[in-house]
């Protein structure tokens, strides 16, 4: 007995280990697909891809050239899919998120291009937690400046919002406050404004920094990246629009560079201009996955995955990938709940049909086929036909019923009628045959009970697989099917009571 107990433990133990391994694998694979292939957890067939091009032009002055250009980093919001540099004769390298181009001395107007392909990861946008930066150094203000600063801060309190918002709004007031004008530099550029606001924030011990980025808009050309202010408020960096004071990353905005570093440093040239242009394209997220896989040097893996198949084959696989989940539900219904249904996987196939027909039309249609089928089958009973010819006759009758209903459905544009064609013919015939035999042998009550149980099981299965997101996830992260495999096998070692047995054996305990 001890040996048997041991054996039982071992089987369960091994299966549990496999389950954990498969869970780990699925988890890793999901992480991988999300991060490197750009799959999302929600069904989304289209994704935006932005092509951002920076055109750096300057006049070389005959000294060795070194260009240092800030580049966007992949973030949760945007993933860099691809980048390329058009700079003939230059040596390029990436250092600390900056593109470094060096070249021997040159003369005349120089043009280099830097192009990146960005993938818009819409699902993941939000504010990011960040470690607390050190308190900023207090700016050097003389007595007079201090007084003005105090007054500005006092005036700002009348504005709505938090401190940076108040200051930004005060600065944007029209007509401007005289105090603000006095404090402003002579040349009012966005950068100068931002720096003034930043110093006022530092005066109040609020860390802040400038952020340069590009507003992604179709076919946009601009000579100047957009400037925003970031302030560290309530434990996180928040972005502020310098003209409205609005908090948060504007839609379709990509940050190229943060902090005090310049956008472009140039040695060996002068009169530099950075011009940005943006192009938006839309692509399916699965076809995008190939590009991303290539980027991650995993092209081979991707090529032999199901997402590289032609779309129609993908669609039929998509349908297939939901089966394991449905099977799991059936296994739970039968071995854990203990509902006895007509045929093991009949409810599953019914649920599949319901997904295609829709719930209400499907159920009504099923009821009609069953009723008519049972009536015809009752006539057959009197004829005493042999088994195979009789079931064949039932199959043909089911086909005729379905044909009639489809024509009827088209004629009167009723969704109930037209959904008939989705029901599996052979399965329907077998349900009718079994129901009819049960009816004769165990009475109408037992027969109806079995049909109802089968429908309940089908509805439970339907409830899970009708969900578009679940269907998408089972397809996009198909390694989950491995987890289901071991779950089902583990269920095969379940020796506890079924739910229905708790009721059945109730009289045996006091």
């Amino acid at each position, binding site marked *: 007995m001890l040996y048997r107990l041991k054996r039982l433990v071992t089987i369960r133990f091994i299966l549990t280990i496999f389950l954990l391994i498969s869970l780990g694998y699925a988890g890793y694979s999901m992480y991988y697909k999300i991060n490197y292939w750009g799959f999302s957890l929600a069904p989304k067939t289209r994704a935006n891809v932005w092509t951002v091009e920076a055109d750096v032009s300057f006049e070389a002055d005959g000294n060795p050239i070194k260009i240092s250009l800030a580049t966007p980093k992949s973030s949760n919001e945007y993933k860099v899919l691809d980048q390329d540099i058009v700079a003939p004769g230059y040596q390029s390298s990436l250092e600390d998120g900056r593109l470094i181009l060096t070249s021997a001395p040159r003369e005349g107007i120089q043009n280099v291009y830097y192009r990146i392909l960005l993938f818009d990861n819409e699902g993941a946008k939000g504010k990011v937690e960040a470690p607390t930066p050190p308190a900023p150094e207090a700016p050097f203000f003389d007595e007079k400046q201090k007084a003005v600063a105090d007054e500005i801060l006092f005036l700002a309190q009348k504005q709505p919002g938090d401190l940076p918002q108040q200051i930004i709004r005060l600065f944007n007031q029209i007509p401007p406050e005289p105090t603000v004008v006095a404090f402003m530099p002579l040349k009012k550029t966005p950068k100068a404004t931002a720096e003034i606001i930043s110093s006022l924030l530092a005066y109040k011990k609020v860390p802040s920094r400038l952020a340069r980025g590009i507003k992604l808009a179709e076919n946009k050309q601009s000579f100047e990246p957009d400037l925003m202010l970031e302030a560290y408020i309530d434990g996180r960096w928040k972005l502020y629009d310098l003209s409205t004071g609005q908090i948060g990353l504007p839609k379709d905005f990509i940050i190229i560079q943060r902090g005090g570093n310049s956008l472009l440093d140039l040695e060996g040239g002068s009169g530099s201009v950075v011009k940005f242009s943006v192009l938006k394209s839309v692509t399916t997220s699965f076809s995008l996955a190939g590009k991303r896989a290539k980027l991650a040097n995993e092209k081979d893996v991707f090529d032999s995955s199901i997402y590289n198949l032609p779309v129609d084959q993908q669609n039929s696989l998509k349908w297939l990938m939901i089966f394991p989940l449905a099977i799991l539900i059936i296994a739970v219904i039968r071995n854990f709940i203990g509902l006895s249904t007509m045929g093991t996987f009949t409810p599953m196939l019914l649920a599949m049909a319901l997904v295609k027909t829709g719930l209400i039309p499907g159920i009504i249609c099923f009821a009609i086929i069953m009723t008519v089928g049972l009536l015809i089958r009752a006539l057959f009973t009197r004829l005493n036909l042999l088994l195979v010819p009789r079931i064949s006759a039932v199959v043909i009758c089911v086909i005729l019923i379905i044909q009639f209903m489809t024509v009827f459905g088209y004629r009167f544009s009723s969704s109930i009628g037209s959904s008939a064609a989705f029901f599996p013919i052979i399965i329907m015939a077998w349900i009718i045959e079994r129901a009819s035999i049960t009816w004769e042998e165990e009475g109408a009550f037992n027969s109806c009970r079995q049909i109802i149980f089968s429908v309940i099981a089908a509805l439970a299965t339907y409830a899970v697989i009708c969900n578009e997101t679940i269907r998408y996830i089972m397809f996009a992260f198909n390694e989950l099917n491995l987890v289901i495999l071991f779950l089902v096998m583990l269920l*095969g070692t*379940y*020796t506890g009571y079924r739910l229905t*047995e708790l009721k059945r054996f109730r009289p*045996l*305990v006091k």
Partner: protein
Amino acid sequence: MFKWLSKYFASPAKLREAGIMGMNNRNFKIISKFNRRRLFPLVDDKVQTKNLAQKFGITTPRLIGKIEFQHEAANFENIIKGWNSFVIKPAHGSGGKGVLVITAHDETGFTTPSGRRLAYKDIYQHISNTLSGLYSLGGQYDTAVIEEMVNFSHIFDDYSYQGIPDVRLIVYKGYPVMAMTRLATAASGGRANLHQGAVGVGLDIKTGKTLKAVMRNKPITHHPDTGADLSKIEVPFWREHLLIGAKAYEMTGLGYLGADIVLDANKGPMMLELNARPGLAVQIANGLGLYKVLKRVDKYYPKKLSPEERVDFILNGRKK
């Protein structure tokens, strides 16, 4: 809410404590361990069971003949020549499906126990249906078995509404451990299925006397149709009943089996059929958990005894 729950449902802990065996437990811990798959055909095929039983000295209704192929059905009248009453069964049937009993026949037709007259073509149709697999387990082609009709003892007459009750023994590792008899009622439509409303009577494995009687999960004292006092049942030839069950273990090699035994007025207890996956209703009829009993067999009952010794062990308790 909780009260309502506990009125209709038992807690798993309590069921475990009572040693009740659930379906999953039966399939995983008992059947898959002690009943090897290749042994199943021995009990699923009634012809094989009969032949084996003969070798092991177990009485079964005598085989008159069998019809395997459609063309042999024409031979039917030759087969039954000399037999006035007989039974036609599917070799792979279960639960009494497709069993046709003929009590008498002449040139004009056949008579069933209920007095219904059948024509020759009806019998032929029944055989055809059997062969095409209408009554067999998986719907596969089947053989029609024709055997002698049991001359049922009349002691059960008062206890059953229709049909003749049989004794179901649960045999574990050769030890008969639980017994019951199922009595058809009007509510069950003359069928002996407990879930259809037949009466289940648990029998004391030592004596063959009534332990408890239930109908639709509730204890009863008298048969709802005949009014017979159910507590008075005492199966005669009890030792012979047990011996058939015990021998069935050696005969089939199945560690867990159900033996259906009927009592013939002249020949005594006869094995009707064996079952490699006996159901769990016997627990309800006995009001006892089967798992507890099986564990006791594992722990305390001696191994390597002959069938007779095992039956004596059951009848006399643990005395040496």
